[in-house]
């Protein structure tokens, strides 16, 4: 998805917030958010709850 299209999608009216309507055809200027929106709640369910802690806690030593 291009940045332009993304920005357009963000400022679009309420249909952009509706997961079901997100997978529309390409007729409109808003480029589809691909099917991903349909699985966001599945992703929500497995995503680490405290993302700040999760991310800051992931520290590695350099490798090859």
């Amino acid at each position, binding site marked *: 998805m291009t940045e332009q299209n993304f920005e357009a999608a963000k400022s679009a009216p309420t249909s952009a917030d509706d997961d079901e309507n997100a997978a529309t055809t390409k007729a409109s200027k808003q480029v589809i958010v691909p099917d991903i929106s349909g699985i*966001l709640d599945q*992703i929500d369910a*497995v*995503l680490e709850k405290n993302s700040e802690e999760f991310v800051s806690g992931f520290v590695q030593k350099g*490798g*090859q």
Partner: protein
Amino acid sequence: MTVHRIMGIETEYGISSPNNLGINPTILCAAVVNAYSDFLFPGRSKPMRWDYYVESPFNDVRGYEVERELADPESWTDIDIGMPNLMLPNGARFYVDHAHPEYSGPEVTNPRDAALWDMAGDRILDVAAGMASELTGNLITIYKNNTDGKGASYGTHENYQVARDVPFDNFVKHLTPFFVSRNIWAGSGRVGLGQESRTSGFQISQRADFFEARVGLETTVNRPIINTRDEPHADPNKFRRLHVIVGDANMSPAMTFLKMGATALVLSMIEDSALDLAIDLTDPVLEMQSVSRDYEFAHELQLTDGTSLRAIQIQRMYLTAAQNYMANKPHDAMTQEVLNLWREVLDALESDNESLVGTVDWVTKKSVLDSYRLRDDLGWQDSKLKAIDLQYSDIRADKGLAYLMQRNSMTTELFTDLEVERAMINPPEDTRAYVRGKSVQSYGQSVVGASWESLIFQISPDEPLKRIGLPDARGYSATETAHLFAKQDELIEFVSNLEQLINEQH
């Protein structure tokens, strides 16, 4: 038949224990490898060791050897520091590489097998980490990625056997622009710009920010686009092992397949002097980063002759050269598959890259990120997006986002679960990985040490150890040695027969 050559992939994984954040990662790694060792070789008193006799990490392909004292201690990969080091029944190496568990897949002869045994490695890590978590009572998590976003990077290395008599400069000249541009489809995506993610944003490649040199021997600092390590693990008069450190880890097997296959084609063209592309980038290191930050493919890479090319144009030039090269040569279905996929991916990148969701890792990752940005109104600095980036590569089937998409039939699949399970326990049949893997399968408790080129057996406690050299990477395959294993002889008989077979060959 040019996607076919000896090749293999080594992956250093990220490792963490969320409830023990201060713990020394080497300890976590040892727990993971040891858990798997205990599973494979229950009740074993002495752990398996790596046979370092033939390692030569200080040999530079440019024809000299670096003094050990001058080399970064991190590069002293030839010393046994007492960490577990396993030859697996599938012919792979599984060990602790400093602070990362590393799975080095067995030698294979083609990109599909490379991707299969690479995927088997992910499953092995998952099993091993699960066992270690249970044994230690602490959750240990594994990530198939290349950076913590805080300045550390670790690699996914590709290895290709190439002809020794090709001047190394030819590899440098032709591979540099290929690798710099390859990330447009091979990259796995990253939230954060700069080695320490000081600038927020998204980039195509996990590794690009960590490359600081054009050519060099190092792998842990001052990383070069073209690595000059010269450890062929084969007849040094005939072969080199090109050690490629520049790529990202891929969750998508299609991208692992394409990465190995397309690169193999480029190598064939180099070996045959069939590439006349004169793409001399003014600053390849800078361009690696510029290409990575340009996911709309507008950036023009500067050439020393004053012209410029976009990354996608460079890839097209290599693809076209490969298509022309293969046009009047007989070639097999797999080679054609690589060419087709390469073309489809480039076409899609230029037109409708949404069709690449589920195939190209960075596109897949970005589509998830964009959906969250939209729904939750997030900026690139938001930790939720960094969490998604990281969790994309979690190798647990029930937590990893790449696997979640696979369950939703959103990803390009290359292998059945059964094929992957088989590759976890069986070696490829067409390289020396076969004899190593089968020896470990059948006589594992008596294999005291191994390397790519050797097996060390303990026949009996009071006799000296028996070392069998395996100098030929294509040798001692199923065709030549399966009958030895089928006999199910006692160890002493088996070793004697194996030795005799090898002596007859050399």
